[in-house]
C-alpha cells in the first residue's frame, strides 16, 4: 500500500489526484511553481514543495527538481497527471531507478508506443486499420510529396511527439504540403524538442472517438467504453460526451464492439499497463481508423467515470500498487449519459484570447447529476504561465436528453466574474440544433463560429 504520493502536476487534475489519494488514506505531496503558491492543490495537499519559478520549463518539467522533491518528502509513488511529464519515458525511468513507483504505463509500453509513428506501425501489425499514410517518419519534402501522391489529398502532417492537438498541419496540394512540412517540423522542434513528422490521409469531418483502457501487470486489459470528443476548436477539445451519439446510431451498432476489441488488441500488442486511451477517427460511412494511444489519464476521464461508475484515478493508484483488475470486460456497463464542458479563462468574443487574472466572484453549479472538477475559487488569481482551463463541468443523466438539460441548467447557474470565460460559448453549443440531434463532426465548431461571425458582421453592417 502506498503511504505517500507526490502529485507532479497542478490545477484541476492535481486536485483530482489528491482527492483520490485522500479517499484511499494516502498522504499527498504537492509541488508548485512560485506562480502557484496560492493554488488549491497546494492548500489541499498534506505537504507542499516549491520547485521553481513560473515557467513550466523551470518547474513542472524539471525532472531533477520533481524527483528531488519526491526524495526529500520520502514518497512511495508519483502521479504525473496529464501533460507535463506524464508521457515522458525518461522521467518514468528516473522514478523507477530512484525506487519511486510511476503511476502510469510501464516502460515497455512507453517505448512500444513511444511516438505516433511507432504506434501507427504497431497498430498495423495488430491488424487494426490506420489512415493511409507514411511508414514512419518522413525524412524529406520529396518523401512527403511521394506519400501525398500515393494516398491522395488532403493530407495531415503530424509531429510524432505531438500531443494535445498541437503540431499538426493540413495540406490540400503540393504547395501547401511543402510549406506545411517545414512549418510543422519547426514547430515540433520548438514545442516538443523533436522535429520528426509523418504524413497521414486527412479524413474530412470525422468523429473523434476514443476508448478508455485499463491494464494490470498480469496482462489483463479491458476497455471502459468510448468518449466522443469531436467538438474541438483548433484541435483542442471543448466538449466531450459518453457514450458517442454516433455509435448509438442503429446503422453503426456493431462499431462499439469492433472498436473496443481493436483498442484492446493494440493495448495488448504494446503490453500496456495502467490507464490509457486509444484514439480513433470514424468517417461518415462508419469506417474507423486508429490514430494514437494517449499513455496517461485524460482531461475528459470524468464522463467515463459517471457512465461506468468506476473511479479511474483510484484504479490507476491501485494498479500501480500491483493490484489486479477487479473487473472483467463483461462487468463493464455503460449506463446513462454524461457530458463534459471545459471551462476556459478565454474571451469567446475576442477570438478566445486568454483571460488570466483574479476571479472576483465564483459560484459553481450543483444539484443532482452535476459535477465540477476545478481548482478555481473566489479570489484566486489565474496565472498567465499555464493553459487557460480553469475547470470542467460534467453532467450525468439517464439519457442524452437529460444530460443536455442538466448541462443547460448548470451552465446558466455558473457565475465567474473578474475574468472572461467560455461559459457562454458552451451554452451556444448546447443550444445548437445539430448538437442536440447528436449530428456533428470535428468541423462543428468552425461551422458554429462561422455562423456566429456572419451574424456579428450582419449586426455591425
Amino acid at each position, binding site marked *: 500500500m502506498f503511504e505517500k504520493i507526490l502529485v507532479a502536476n497542478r490545477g484541476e487534475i492535481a486536485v483530482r489526484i489528491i482527492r483520490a489519494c485522500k479517499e484511499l488514506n494516502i498522504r499527498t505531496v504537492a509541488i508548485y511553481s512560485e506562480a502557484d503558491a496560492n493554488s488549491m492543490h497546494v492548500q489541499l495537499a498534506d505537504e507542499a*514543495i516549491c520547485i521553481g519559478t513560473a515557467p513550466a520549463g523551470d518547474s513542472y518539467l524539471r525532472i531533477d527538481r520533481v524527483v528531488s522533491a519526491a526524495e*526529500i518528502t520520502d514518497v512511495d509513488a508519483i502521479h504525473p497527471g496529464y501533460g507535463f511529464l506524464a508521457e515522458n519515458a525518461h522521467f518514468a525511468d528516473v522514478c523507477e531507478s530512484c525506487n519511486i513507483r510511476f503511476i502510469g504505463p510501464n516502460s515497455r509500453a512507453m517505448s512500444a508506443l513511444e511516438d505516433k509513428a511507432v504506434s501507427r506501425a504497431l497498430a498495423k501489425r495488430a491488424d487494426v486499420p490506420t489512415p493511409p499514410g507514411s511508414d514512419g517518419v518522413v525524412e524529406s519534402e520529396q518523401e512527403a510529396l511521394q506519400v501525398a501522391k500515393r494516398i491522395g489529398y488532403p493530407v495531415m502532417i503530424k509531429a510524432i511527439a505531438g500531443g494535445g492537438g498541437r503540431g499538426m498541419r493540413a495540406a490540400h496540394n503540393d504547395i501547401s504540403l511543402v510549406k506545411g512540412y517545414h512549418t510543422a517540423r519547426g514547430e515540433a522542434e520548438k514545442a516538443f524538442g523533436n522535429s520528426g513528422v509523418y504524413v497521414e490521409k486527412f479524413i474530412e469531418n470525422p468523429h473523434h472517438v476514443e476508448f478508455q483502457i485499463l491494464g494490470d501487470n498480469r496482462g489483463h486489459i479491458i476497455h471502459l467504453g468510448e468518449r466522443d470528443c469531436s467538438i474541438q476548436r483548433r484541435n483542442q477539445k471543448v466538449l466531450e460526451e459518453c457514450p458517442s451519439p454516433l455509435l448509438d446510431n442503429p446503422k453503426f451498432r456493431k462499431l462499439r464492439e469492433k472498436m473496443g476489441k481493436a483498442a484492446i488488441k493494440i493495448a495488448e500488442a504494446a503490453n500496456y499497463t495502467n490507464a490509457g486511451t486509444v484514439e480513433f477517427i470514424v468517417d461518415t460511412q462508419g469506417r474507423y481508423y486508429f490514430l494514437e494511444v494517449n499513455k496517461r489519464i485524460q482531461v475528459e476521464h470524468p464522463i467515463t467515470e459517471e457512465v461506468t461508475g468506476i473511479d479511474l484515478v483510484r484504479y490507476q493508484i491501485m494498479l500501480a500498487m500491483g493490484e489486479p483488475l477487479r473487473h472483467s470486460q463483461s462487468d463493464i456497463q455503460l449506463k446513462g449519459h454524461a457530458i463534459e464542458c471545459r471551462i476556459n479563462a478565454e474571451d469567446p468574443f475576442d477570438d478566445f484570447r486568454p483571460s488570466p487574472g483574479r476571479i472576483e466572484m465564483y459560484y459553481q453549479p450543483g444539484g443532482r447529476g452535476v459535477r465540477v472538477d476545478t481548482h478555481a475559487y473566489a479570489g484566486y488569481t489565474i496565472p498567465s504561465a499555464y493553459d487557460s482551463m480553469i475547470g470542467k463541468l460534467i453532467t450525468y443523466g439517464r439519457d442524452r436528453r437529460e444530460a443536455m438539460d442538466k448541462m443547460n441548467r448548470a451552465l446558466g447557474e455558473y457565475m465567474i466574474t473578474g475574468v472572461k470565460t467560455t461559459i457562454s460559448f458552451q451554452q451556444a453549443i448546447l443550444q445548437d440544433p445539430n448538437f442536440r440531434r447528436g449530428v456533428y463532426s470535428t468541423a462543428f465548431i468552425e461551422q458554429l463560429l462561422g455562423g456566429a461571425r456572419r451574424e456579428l458582421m450582419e449586426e455591425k453592417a
Partner: protein
Amino acid sequence: MDLKDIKAIIDLMKKNSVTEFELEKQDFKIRLKRGTNGGGAAASYDDAPAVTAAQPPSAIPAAVAAPQAPVVPVSNELEIKSPMIGTFYRAPSPEAAAYVEVGVEVNPETVVCIIEAMKVMNEIKAEAKGVITQIMVENAKPVEFGQPLFKVRPS
C-alpha cells in the same frame, strides 16, 4: 470641538513630540495620550481654544515617545536563497567543519553549504559579497526552491 479639531491636535502633538494633552472646558473634557512612554511634562493648556505651540523636544526629555516597534532589521540585508530542492548540509561531511558561520565574510565564489539532491552533493556559492548574519536552516533539513538559507550584510 469636532473630529477635525481633534485630528489637528493629534497632528500637532506628533509634530512637536508631545505625548500628553488635556483640555477641559465647561461642557467637555479631552485628554490625549501618545505612546506608552507617557510620563513627563505634559503640556498644560488653559481654556484658550487655540492650541499653543508645544515646548521644543529638548525641554521635555521623557516625553519624547520612543519608537514603539521592535528594531526593524536593516533592510539592505541580502538573502541567499536555495536554487534547488534537496537536503541542506552546513559542512562537506559530518566530521568536517561548517563552511561558514555567523560573522564570516563571504564573496561571490565562497561555498556556503551543500544541497544534496538525488545522491549528488551540490556546492552552493554565496553569489554575494558581505558578512553572514544569520543561518536560516538547520543542518540536514530539507529545503525547497527559493527557500532562504543565509542572511548576508553586504559590504
